[in-house]
């Protein structure tokens, strides 16, 4: 309590109130006129200098809670005061932020009410941020003191915090973007424009059934369902191979499935063209040997489908591996002792227990496909999908924000429908399998009739993936693909050369700038993403509170929105005060956090729903509070989920393109947008070389993360049990 008030006062009196031009992590302001220069001054100093007088009421709201602290916690007045002052302070902060902008009053009616304002303000900075958090937590402590969620300060605070950041960084930009769905070219609101654009044939047409082109909405939907189903099946197959067979090369397979996830999406698209395009290697080979004339069959649905399956199966795998490992062996052993054969056990026990994982994997595949932008761009041909249509609506000659917004609405409707279908399928059943009883025993092996097709599919897929990566690597060391096949390292040298200059090392390669920025942004955003995601998952699985469904919906929403939309909406919303972060590194970090957080949430939910609630409860009755319980009991048991969330968000931050392309600036250029730039200049060699380097770096990073996070040993007695020992399989590891 006191802590947050102190934070609030520090924010008000000590640090600059407004955003500092030089960036969030730069501290030059300390030496340039602080604390009197009005660009760097804390709110208190501004007030003393007679500026920004509208900040004055905040003093009152910051003093108020002291009054509450004088009263005991059980006194209802204590809670009431905290709520009132927290809400008023937070509300005032927001209201003044929106009311007063760069050129004084933001709204005409305010100006006519109070007369012109001789002052103005910029985007909020450290000071405003600290004061806002102080008000927020004063408010949540008031709510907790009133007995919400058993009066648990940590839980109420965490809920409040997540709601606040999701509102600011998801709802606010999306709403400001959607409001433009009703705006005509000359800035007036109109409903008819909305309907005209919504019923467009390019969106809902069904001409492809009779040989024409179908609407983007149908294309996206069919593609997403196929991708969701196929990636889930493939992901499950790999998870089963790794956990339930005597397969020797598990580690290799794991690495193999991780490869596509650490590949910038359009690179897979490019490699597929190198293989199956008109002058692709496979196409040429088939033409030579069988005399089949090369066609452009790969452009369109087939190509996009293949590329997306390659790209998203690993996500399904990462989600499913945790669930497949989490199924308590004793349940499977119990089934076997009940005379179920291995196949029956798998069908009636293992598979149903994996249902949450399967549902989650499908949902992720579906949404990823809907939101994917790189592959349809490279391989789509005449196959229009929503995400690319949105891009062209904004970037193309049409520049039609309204159309983009409407397309985004349709996309959102599809993803939300999938979300609810998933919840309906899972129903209210409990899938808890890890109880507080130390579980010993091991997973049974797959039944033969399943093992053979599983191995076959995994094998084919693995060979295919391997080929793709060989192509990528080969492409990076070829002078000019298809024209001059001489081997060369010149692309790498252009990008990453180093020279010894007079003042030490010179980073002369053209790619270094974007490379370091990318690494830095990814390293900052990954832990933040994982943290926010897992705390959210904890709240969703472990706590009961009013409005939980709305809360879940809100936290998953950003995932259903394609990067393109996020990019555009962020630019629209955060270009002007009160939050002015366009062109900074912060906007990139923030966009990554909110785009990737849902994966952390899903992975967390899937694993946490397998931890019996009595584990938390016994920790609570042993005197740990809910934060300590989260830290000591939940987190260590969630290491697989943490790793998945960290890896995913790190890698996503390094490979994402769709949102990034709108948000980069000269100072903060990211690797992917640099590469796309090279592709546009037909500099494929450099683009592929850079991509290959990124892949290597990410491989190293993923390995490092694996070591850092470590494993939690919950003890399985042996790696193999007697039931598993067969003639050909031998235990490994």
């Amino acid at each position, binding site marked *: 309590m006191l802590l947050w008030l102190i934070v609030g006062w520090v924010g008000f009196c000590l640090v600059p109130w407004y955003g500092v031009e030089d960036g969030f992590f730069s501290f030059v302001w300390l030496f340039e006129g602080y604390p009197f220069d009005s660009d760097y001054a804390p709110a208190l100093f501004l007030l003393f200098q007679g500026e920004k007088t509208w900040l004055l009421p905040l003093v009152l709201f910051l003093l108020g809670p002291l009054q509450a602290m004088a009263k005991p916690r059980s006194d209802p007045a204590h809670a009431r005061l905290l709520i009132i002052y927290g809400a008023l302070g937070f509300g005032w902060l927001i209201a003044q932020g929106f009311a007063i902008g760069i050129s004084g009053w933001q709204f005409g009616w305010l100006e006519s009410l109070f007369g012109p304002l001789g002052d103005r303000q910029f985007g909020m900075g450290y000071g405003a941020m600290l004061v806002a958090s102080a008000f927020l937590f004063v408010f949540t402590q008031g709510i907790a003191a009133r007995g919400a969620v058993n009066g648990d300060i940590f839980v109420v605070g965490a809920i409040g915090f997540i709601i606040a950041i999701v509102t600011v960084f998801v709802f606010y930009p999306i709403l400001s973007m959607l409001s433009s769905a009703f705006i005509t070219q000359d800035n007036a609101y109109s409903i008819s424009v909305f309907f005209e654009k919504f019923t467009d044939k390019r969106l809902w047409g069904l001409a492809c059934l009779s040989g024409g082109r179908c609407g983007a909405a149908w294309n996206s939907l069919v593609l997403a369902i196929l991708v969701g189903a196929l990636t889930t099946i493939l992901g499950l197959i790999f998870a089963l191979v790794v956990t339930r067979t005597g397969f020797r090369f598990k580690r290799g397979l794991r690495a193999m499935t991780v490869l596509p996830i650490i590949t910038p999406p359009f690179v897979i698209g490019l490699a597929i063209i190198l293989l199956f395009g008109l002058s692709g290697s496979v196409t040429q080979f088939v033409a030579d040997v069988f005399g089949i004339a090369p066609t452009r069959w790969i452009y369109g649905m087939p190509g996009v489908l293949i590329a997306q399956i390659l790209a998203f199966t690993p996500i399904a795998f990462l989600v499913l591996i945790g669930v497949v490992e989490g199924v308590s062996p004793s349940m499977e052993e119990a089934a076997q002792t009940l005379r179920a054969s291995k196949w029956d056990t798998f069908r009636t026990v293992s598979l149903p227990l994996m249902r949450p994982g399967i549902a989650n994997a499908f949902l992720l595949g579906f949404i990823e496909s809907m939101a994917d932008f790189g592959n349809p761009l490279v391989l789509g041909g005449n196959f229009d999908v929503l995400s690319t249509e949105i891009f062209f609506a904004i970037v193309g000659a049409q520049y039609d924000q309204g159309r983009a917004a409407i397309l985004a609405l349709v996309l959102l409707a599809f993803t939300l429908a999938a979300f609810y279908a998933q919840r309906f399928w899972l129903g209210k059943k409990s899938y808890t399998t890890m109880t507080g*009883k130390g579980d010993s025993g091991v997973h049974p092996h797959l039944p033969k009739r399943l093992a053979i097709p599983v191995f076959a599919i995994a094998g084919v897929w693995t060979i295919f993936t391997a080929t793709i990566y060989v192509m990528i690597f080969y492409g990076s060391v070829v002078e000019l693909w298809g024209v001059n096949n001489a081997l060369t390292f010149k692309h790498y040298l252009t990008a990453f050369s180093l020279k010894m200059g007079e003042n030490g090392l010179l980073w002369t390669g053209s790619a270094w700038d974007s490379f370091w920025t990318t690494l830095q942004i990814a390293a900052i955003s990954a832990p933040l993403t994982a943290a926010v995601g897992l705390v959210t998952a904890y709240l969703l699985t472990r706590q009961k509170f009013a409005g939980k469904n709305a809360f879940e919906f809100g936290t998953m929403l950003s995932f259903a929105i394609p990067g393109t939309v996020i990019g555009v909406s962020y630019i629209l919303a955060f270009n002007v005060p009160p939050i002015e972060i366009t062109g900074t590194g912060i906007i990139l970090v923030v966009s990554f956090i909110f785009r990737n957080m849902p994966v952390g949430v899903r992975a967390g939910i899937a694993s946490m729903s397998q931890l019996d609630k009595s584990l938390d409860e*016994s*920790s609570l009755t042993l005197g740990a509070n809910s934060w300590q319980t989260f830290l000591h009991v939940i987190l260590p*048991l969630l290491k697989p989920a943490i790793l998945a969330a960290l890896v995913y968000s790190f890698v996503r931050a390094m490979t994402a393109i769709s949102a990034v392309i709108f948000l980069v600036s000269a100072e903060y250029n990211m690797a992917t947008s640099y590469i796309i730039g090279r592709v546009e200049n037909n500099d494929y060699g450099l683009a592929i070389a850079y991509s290959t380097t990124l892949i290597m770096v990410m491989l190293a990073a993923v390995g490092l993360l694996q070591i850092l996070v470590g494993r939690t040993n919950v003890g399985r007695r042996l790696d193999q049990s007697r039931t598993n020992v067969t003639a050909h399989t031998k235990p490994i590891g």
Partner: protein
Amino acid sequence: MTATHNSKAASVSFRNVTKVYGGDVRAVGNISVDIAAGTLVTLLGPSGCGKTTTLRLIAGLEMSTSGTITIGDNDVTNLPATDRDVSMVFQSYALFPHMSVLENVSYGLKFSGFNKAESKERALAGLKLVGLDGYDSRLPSELSGGQQQRVAVARALVLEPQVLLFDEPLSNLDAKLRRQVREEIREIQQTLGLTVVYVTHDQEEALAVSDRIIVMNNATIAQDGTPRELYDAPANRFVADFIGEANIMACEISAVAVDVAQVKLGDIHLNLPSRGLHSGPAFLAVRPNRVIVDVPGVANSIPGSIVRLTYVGNHLEYTLETTHGELFATSSDVESKLKVGDPVAVRFAEKGPVLLRD
């Protein structure tokens, strides 16, 4: 009642406590009860009667819908679990699978302000108390069911809580172990003078360990008393039936004078404590071992015949058909020459029958 007295053990009291789940499931209905410090009290009742809910209300894992709960002198009604000085042994044990036995047992100590060395010392002492010294570095998955159970007990014990709760702690153990562990729990409770609330659905277990038993049925208290009181004088049909076996028979109260009722059951005339009943039809409960099988014609008896007769080693079990319905009786006279079909007279031992309140 207890051998030594623990300074921390505290009483628990419920005043009109009700717990409603989700608006319509009434798991605990308007319960008032006092549990004295330093005693072991069991909550006994059939599955679904609200025992676990009552226990969780004491622990602070559920918040009561109405009523007040006090532990010692403190009103804890609105206090969450963390802030109550209560620990609980879960039916599933809820051992943290990623922590060693020692880490599990010292878990709560860590949050009670003990330093590392102290925590370890106390945890080891706790393990010793439950007979698990030497197992401290194992993972829960490397222990047998009984050992896991002891770890769970030790983990709760070392905190020296005001109240210690057990939710069907023996349900995962085999019969032999069950008897042994329940005796150990009782012994530890008595030597440390702990207040223990113990949930079970097994009446034998309840009778064996408790200072007092609270019998629950349909979210309310059916009867509350010492094992002896419950056994000898069940208040109602439900308790009579649930604790031990009982023959329940319709009878007639002809008059009541100064708490003594004159009861008539066929040719049997009895003077019994009236327990607040008035003249009119009533019910009588008789334990099987208080039903005496005698030769036909004795006074104060009802006629009947033997339907079934079973020899079970240390006693005989009779099923009798009488003019007042079927009766179940046991007799320690294993040398009896009676056989199935023989006519008999049935009478009751003195202090055998009790009137039921409802």
